[in-house]
């Protein structure tokens, strides 16, 4: 124990994606000594992969846009299950967060009058996504990264040390959160991927910004980092997760060749005019417009096509319905035998825009298909199908401060829950990262400033963390982590995937138990230095616990809503809208198991309800909720 590397900070941010970096900037600007930890190199977090854009009601392209319209779209997209306070803060603050990026050096695409250009996206009433071609995530990450560097340069000038107040620990994986006897956060414990050596951080506040859980599913747009570490760390520390049954399957992932299956095809392809066709060359989305969206989406091609040039007088093309709707439609077409040769459907932009325009607007898609699939998207349609993309569920937080139930533990970004309800709109994640990353950084700083003493972790906690991390090296002949991971992905994909049934989910839970037992015995070869087998063995524990939450919550919710579709309960049920499913865990390490309970949803504030027409609320709220609500009869424009 004596040689354990130790550091002490005021605020520890776990995760260097958009949420983590924004949180770190905020904490540092509040005077906190701040550390950022991440599993990969600085600047490579998952956020870098985001393509389409960042949603913010700046009204640069259509001046009718406002936070109220953005708020409404977000609530509709999430089927009214969203934490409305988060949706409100998000819609109000997103424009400032985007403008702030320009002061960090970001260069968004421009409108003719020199402002930030905004593009259309599914579920957004007006062109709202600020973007840089189709590499917006890269711009976001790089701008935040460069802002961090500029703060470090300030510290260098002032204190002679770049890292005096803000330091990035890259390729450093956290395996445990440390707590004092009262359960307050005292720091975190992890290992350097490079050397396998352990390291402990003493800090009274931790911001989780670890992203999502997609690596538990076989077909996914997510990278190896998405093993649900933050979700699992929060559970084991005593925090709760909400909305874990809601997993977003993006409608358009690549389906061929097999090795790229799941890689994302950005929604901008559709936002910029691309259409979906089945093997009979039919634009099938017209057959899948749900009742709640009938007044917003065109039911014929002529009107749909006119919308691109005259959005005020035409309804939107149904290709731009929220993602859950489009994903289900594609799934049905393929099931009905009208799919493409490799089991997807066709997404065509080649017949819709001139080649130069496609290359200008969608350069990385053009590049991606050419290099990986030998498909020229300016001349041929793409083949696409649903892919696991985003988890709406995550750590339950206070909207204003991003604080979890555990004192000193905060969460922001994809690892937090509530903001997106049952389904996230495209572009609403990047804005979420900035709005709540900033709030988490401020929340954590305020918490630390309010403390009279720094919580200290009991020394045995460190010893335990070390033992648990080394367990995979004990013994031999146990299961291989790669094999177990593949089994887990298959289970989640087949049994808790895009369309769910009670019997299958019960089966999934049995299989997860069996996998947990095997995971307890997993053994790895080699030594601790950059050993991916060992890393995966540790990640598996998190994936299993989080998968259990998804399966258990999904089994309990006997309705279909957003990113949760039950074959046996196909309808949306207003009673269920009032209920959240909250997951907690007991036990430790591989033995930890999840428990899910119902919790009533907090009723929406009347002034926010007033933003909707009564006729729309009727589609989502119970009769009882509606009678309590008088003012909602006012017009949409209010």
């Amino acid at each position: 124990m004596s040689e354990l590397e130790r550091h002490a900070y005021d605020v520890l941010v776990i995760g260097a994606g958009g949420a983590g970096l924004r949180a770190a900037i905020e904490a540092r600007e509040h005077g906190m000594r701040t550390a950022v930890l991440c599993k990969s190199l600085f600047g490579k977090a998952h956020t870098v992969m985001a393509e389409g854009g960042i949603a913010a009601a700046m009204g640069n392209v259509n001046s009718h846009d406002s936070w109220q319209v953005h708020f409404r779209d977000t609530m509709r997209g999430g089927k009214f299950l969203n934490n409305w306070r988060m949706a409100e803060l998000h819609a109000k603050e997103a424009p400032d967060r985007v403008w702030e990026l320009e002061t960090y050096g970001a260069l968004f695409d421009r409108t003719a009058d020199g402002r930030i250009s905004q593009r259309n996206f599914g579920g957004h009433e007006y062109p709202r996504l600020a973007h840089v071609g189709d590499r917006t995530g890269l711009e976001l990450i790089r701008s935040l990264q460069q802002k961090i560097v500029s703060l470090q340069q300030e510290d260098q000038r002032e204190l002679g040390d770049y890292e005096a107040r803000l330091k990035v620990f890259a390729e450093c994986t956290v395996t445990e959160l440390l707590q004092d006897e009262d359960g307050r956060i005292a720091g975190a414990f992890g290992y350097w991927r490079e050397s396998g050596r352990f390291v402990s951080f003493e800090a009274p506040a931790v911001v989780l910004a670890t992203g999502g859980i997609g690596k538990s599913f076989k077909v996914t747009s997510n990278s190896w980092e998405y093993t649900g570490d933050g979700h699992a760390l929060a559970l084991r520390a005593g925090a709760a997760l909400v909305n874990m049954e809601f997993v977003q399957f993006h409608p358009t992932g690549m389906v061929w060749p097999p090795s790229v299956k799941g890689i994302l095809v950005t929604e901008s392809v559709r936002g910029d005019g691309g259409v979906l066709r089945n093997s009979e060359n039919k634009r099938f989305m017209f057959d899948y417009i749900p009742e709640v969206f009938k007044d917003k989406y065109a039911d014929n091609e002529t009107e749909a096509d006119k919308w691109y040039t005259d959005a005020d007088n035409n309804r939107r093309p149904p290709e731009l319905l929220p993602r859950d709707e489009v994903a289900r439609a594609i799934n049905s077409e393929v099931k009905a035998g009208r799919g493409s040769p490799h089991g997807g459907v066709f997404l065509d932009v080649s017949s819709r825009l001139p080649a130069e325009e496609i290359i200008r607007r969608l350069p990385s898609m053009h590049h991606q298909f050419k290099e990986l699939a030998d498909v020229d998207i300016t001349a041929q349609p793409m083949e696409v199908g649903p892919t696991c993309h985003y988890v709406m569920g995550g750590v339950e937080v206070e909207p204003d401060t991003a604080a979890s139930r555990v004192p000193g533990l905060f969460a922001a970004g994809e690892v937090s829950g509530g903001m997106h309800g049952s389904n996230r709109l495209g572009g609403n994640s990047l804005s979420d990262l900035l709005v709540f990353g900033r709030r988490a950084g401020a929340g954590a700083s305020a918490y630390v400033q309010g403390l009279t003493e720094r919580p200290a972790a009991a020394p045995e906690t460190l010893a335990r963390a070390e033992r648990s991390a080394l367990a995979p090296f004990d013994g031999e002949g146990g299961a291989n982590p790669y094999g177990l991971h593949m089994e887990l992905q298959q289970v989640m994909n087949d049994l808790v995937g895009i369309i769910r049934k009670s019997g299958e989910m019960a089966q999934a839970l049995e299989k997860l138990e069996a996998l947990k037992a095997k995971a307890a015995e997993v053994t790895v070869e080699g030594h601790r230095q950059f050993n991916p087998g060992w890393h995966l063995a540790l990640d598996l524990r998190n994936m299993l616990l989080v998968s259990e939450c998804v399966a258990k919550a999904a089994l309990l919710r006997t309705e279909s809503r957003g990113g949760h579709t039950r074959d046996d309960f196909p309808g949306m049920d207003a009673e269920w809208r009032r209920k959240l499913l909250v997951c907690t865990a007991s036990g430790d390490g591989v033995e930890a198991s999840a428990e899910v309970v119902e919790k009533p949803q907090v009723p929406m504030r009347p002034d926010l309800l007033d933003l909707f027409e009564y006729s729309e609320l009727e589609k989502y709220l119970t009769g009882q909720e509606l009678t309590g609500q008088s003012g909602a009869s006012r017009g949409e424009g209010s």
Partner: protein
Amino acid sequence: MGYQAHFRVWRGDGEGGDLRDFTVEVNEGEVVLDVIHRLQATQASDLAVRWNCKAGKCGSCSAEINGRPRLLCMTRMSVFSESETVTVTPMRTFPVIRDLVTDVSFNYTKAREIPSFKPPADLAPGEYRMQQVDVERSQEFRKCIECFLCQDTCHVVRDHEENKESFAGPRFLMRIAELEMHPLDDADRVREAQSEHGLGFCNITKCCTEVCPEHIKITDNALIPMKERVADRRYDPLVWLGNKIGRRKA
């Protein structure tokens, strides 16, 4: 459809290592990274490799394939014949940590030495106005995924450890160009590009441009224009002022 390919992969650490031979299955449509992953899953569970996105977007999986700096995830197996031996080695310019993973901290050190964007003092957030044509050049440079392949390939530092101290490398000289060409950046960067960051070392061989997976024209669009500005400045110190005052206000 699948076949058995012959791979030679460098294994070892900072102390030394060697090429190991593997026979491994390859299926239609796969890239080199898929094959490396198959080796991990079936024959060498502790084979170290960096990767994230597997879609050419994050710049993590840089290595050298048959001696050429490339992204493992964007190199399709179909570019090799079935009988060809595929040799995968770590980037040569950076110290090896283990197997295909190198210590790229040189790049982060250099990044920190480049003065940051200097926001215009007279504009509040939300007031920035820039024309698309004016941001396009810097946007091209901002496509950089920081794979560091250009840094790996540039002969100024490849096999010339002694130059690392005074040379930022193509990626970071390009960063200076990006800021220099940013319509609203308030700093003067030309002189330091030459005096502090080693622009003078570059003799425009274009090797960096050739390996850039983002197809950024590093030499033509960033390095040569910077050299021209340096040359201009030698003759006329007022050029910079003129450039900046002339900035477009839309």
